């Protein structure tokens, strides 16, 4: 009964979306107010219906109603409650409902907060959102209905994959989808602007917070997924350049570019056509990610069962959405009037370089991810594109990006004096030298490249702080004065400093993790120990324990350094009997500078156990950096200017300067 209710609510949501996607659009074209104003209530209605459907699905999971196929295939009565709930989106069908729920949530947020949007723009944005919703509702209802019943019902379910029964992965999909779907807002605004033929500073001011919100979610989602892979898979790795990782990373790269180019549109009325294209492409890549993950197109590692029919459906959806919007772009982009001019050396110039490197990086990942498919289609041969490829193509693009990132915030709009900027970065240059010198000092063997990389990261970090200190005149004015300045500084400025500094921290972690990680594997008997990077690991033995739905061998490893106790690590090797699946649970002790990471392997049957120790310098900084970046976005989002949205349209000044710049 509850399941049918959920199914019914989803159908009603589809009907609501059809109304929301048609009447307001026609109303906006004809200037017919009552039809336009239908959009907002329809969006709220859709949220209510989809939420109802999602609640129904959650309910059947919570009560373990195995008459529902989806529950029987992905849940089990003995599963802890947390994973019964998160199991709702641990499978293809349920995750689609979550996808739609988040889409409806974003739509209703426009309806709710978009009071100051011009009515036609609001109607069109919500209309485009509804089209996306129609596509995914149809997809879910026709090919992936989570509410189907099974008769006779099985006595118990097949359980959720044990690897997914983990807090890190439980919340990874919602964050990731919030990021993917969040970019639909920028997309809808871009389409609406193309239809209206008008894109101005006010438009950018509406788009920026949504993009920032989506970006923050996506950053958090990717970081959480990476963290999960790090501690759960037991290899000490955190990024594998797997297709599924790449498809979430591509929208992140372009979304980051969009975030910056939208600022140029807002402040300087320039780069409009490019920004619209970025908005379309960012969401298109999000859709493509959904397509690739669920179609089985690439041999990749992901939890969803693949089905060519579903793949075909999403491909058609992709053709309509992406093809249609790019066609609209080709036809309508010339209507967007080019705006403010700027010199090559300027804040805008810095943003252009940022966009250049991010777009090139995205193209590189795109090429690497899809090349095996391209080549197979052309001559049937198969190649593997793995981490070694990205190390030589992607990483070099990050070097100029990080370098310019330090300069950008110090450059004024329109025209900057490069010599002056560098003069203000003396401290950062010192920081870079110090970073490189410390690396050379701490590490044996004259590691030139890593030292240069750490120098670059220190350069960015110090430059970000310098810019912030200058703005509040820290140490140049009395402290109280600086405090007042800091409080008066727009929140977005604090946010930017945090985001850039966070990037520097994360980059330092990534460099450390890829250059200096160590792995030792040894067969140890209880009482024996091994040394890794100055730490002493004593293997105390293994005991058998019984978890709620698994059995485990739990090892105890005592870590000491120079005789002083550091930590006791208890890695586990679990067996989940329902799926007859073994998993490894790594034990990690972090000193915030290095992770001590232990995994227990197999017994050799003679009292010895395979003990695997990873020494992972700076890895914690990756997550710290990501947290700081996300924090920065939320600080920015709390900026009054963004919260209030655009000023009234009359107040919008025509950009200064006479000559319109040709669009790119």
């Amino acid at each position, binding site marked *: 009964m509850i399941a049918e209710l959920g199914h019914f609510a989803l159908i009603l949501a589809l009907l609501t979306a059809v109304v929301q996607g048609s009447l307001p659009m026609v109303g906006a074209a004809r200037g017919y107010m009552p039809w336009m104003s239908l959009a907002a209530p329809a969006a709220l209605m859709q949220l209510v219906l989809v939420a109802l459907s999602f609640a129904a699905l959650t309910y059947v999971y919570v009560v373990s109603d195995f008459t529902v196929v989806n529950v029987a295939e992905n849940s089990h009565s003995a599963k802890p409650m947390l994973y019964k709930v998160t199991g709702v989106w641990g499978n293809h069908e349920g995750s689609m409902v979550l996808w739609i729920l988040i889409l409806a949530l974003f739509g209703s947020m426009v309806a709710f907060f978009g009071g100051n949007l011009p009515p036609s723009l609001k109607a069109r944005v919500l209309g485009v959102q509804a089209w996306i919703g129609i596509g995914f509702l149809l997809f879910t209802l026709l090919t992936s209905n989570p509410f189907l019943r099974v008769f006779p019902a099985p006595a118990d379910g097949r359980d959720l994959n044990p690897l997914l029964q983990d807090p890190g992965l439980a919340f990874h999909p919602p964050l990731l989808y919030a990021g993917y779907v969040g970019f639909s807002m920028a997309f809808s605004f871009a389409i609406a602007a193309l239809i209206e033929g008008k894109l101005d500073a006010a438009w950018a001011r509406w788009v920026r917070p949504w993009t920032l919100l989506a970006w923050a979610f996506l950053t958090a989602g990717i970081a959480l997924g990476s963290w999960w892979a790090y501690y759960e898979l037991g290899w000490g790795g955190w990024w594998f350049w797997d297709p599924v990782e790449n498809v979430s990373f591509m929208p992140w790269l372009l979304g980051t570019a969009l975030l910056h180019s939208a600022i140029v549109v807002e402040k300087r009325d320039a780069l409009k056509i490019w920004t619209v294209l970025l908005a379309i492409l960012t969401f298109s890549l999000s859709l493509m990610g959904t397509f690739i993950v669920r179609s089985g197109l690439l041999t990749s590692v992901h939890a969803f069962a693949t089905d060519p029919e579903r793949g075909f459906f999403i491909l058609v959806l992709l053709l309509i959405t992406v093809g249609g919007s790019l066609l609209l772009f080709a036809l309508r982009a010339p209507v967007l009037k080019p705006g403010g001019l700027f010199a090559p050396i300027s804040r805008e110039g810095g943003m252009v370089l940022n966009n250049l490197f991010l777009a090139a990086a995205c193209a590189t990942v795109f090429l690497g991810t899809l090349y095996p498919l391209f080549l197979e289609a052309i001559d049937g041969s198969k190649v593997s594109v*793995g981490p070694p490829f990205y190390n030589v193509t992607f990483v070099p693009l990050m070097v100029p990006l990080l370098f310019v990132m330090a300069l950008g915030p110090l450059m004024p709009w329109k025209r900057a004096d490069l010599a002056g900027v560098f003069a203000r970065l003396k401290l950062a240059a010192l920081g870079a030298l110090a970073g490189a010198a410390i690396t050379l000092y701490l590490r044996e063997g004259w590691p030139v490249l890593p030292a240069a990389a750490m120098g670059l990261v220190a350069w960015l970090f110090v430059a970000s702080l310098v810019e912030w200190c200058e703005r509040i005149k820290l140490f140049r004015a009395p402290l109280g004065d600086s405090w007042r300045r800091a409080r008066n500084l727009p929140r977005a400025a604090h946010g930017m400093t945090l985001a850039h500094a966070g990037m520097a921290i994360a980059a330092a972690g990534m460099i450390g993790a890829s250059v200096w990680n160590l792995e030792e594997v040894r067969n140890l008997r209880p009482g024996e120990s091994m040394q890794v990077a100055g730490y002493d690991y004593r293997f105390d033995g293994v005991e058998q324990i019984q978890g709620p739905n698994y059995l485990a061998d739990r090892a105890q490893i005592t870590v000491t350094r120079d005789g002083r106790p550091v930590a006791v690590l208890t890695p586990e090797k679990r067996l989940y009997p329902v799926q007859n699946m073994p998993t490894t649970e790594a034990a990690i002790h972090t000193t915030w500078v290095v992770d001590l990471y232990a995994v227990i392997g197999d017994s050799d049957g003679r009292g010895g156990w395979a003990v695997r120790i990873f020494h992972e310098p700076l890895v914690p900084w990756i997550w710290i950096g990501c947290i700081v970046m996300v924090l920065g976005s939320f600080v920015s989002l709390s900026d009054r200017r963004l919260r209030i949205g655009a000023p009234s349209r009359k107040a919008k000044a025509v950009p200064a300067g006479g000559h319109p710049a040709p669009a790119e």
Partner: protein
Amino acid sequence: MKRLIAALAFVVAASLGLPAAAVEPDEVLADAALEQRARDLSHEIRCVVCQNESIDSSNAELAKEMRILVRERLVAGDSDQQVLDYLVARYGDFVLLRPPVKPGTYVLWFGPAVITVLGILGVFFFLRRQRRPASAVQPLSAEEEARLARLLDSADASDAGAPAHAQPGQSQKDTAERS
């Protein structure tokens, strides 16, 4: 996620026996330098029955066999390239995580550089085209602005170094083509 599929593949297909862990104690070579070479090399070799996993981190039996083989050949005095060639002869380029540079992969290997260079050129021309007017900004009347926009719009195909007021010939041609 990789281990997830590896495990699933094991359950479903049971292709090559019971799973073992990644590099196991008994595989490790006594010679640390050689072992390091083996580890580095293993990161370049794909476990052909897994999903985008190197043999170094894979728990498949075939990956274990290949790890041992890599070590044996290194001990026997093979160069890194010889070891890779040995595996490519049996499993094709698919076994390499760093695809070989050859005509079929030129687009893959040189694509990123070409895209970046094209991007830099694009940015260069875009910035150069707006450099001149930016140096002498003087407000125009709305009418002048509209006229200029038309001219610029039709002439932006022309060389960016040219004065902002495009070559008449070019703009006429473009206008003709467009209308």
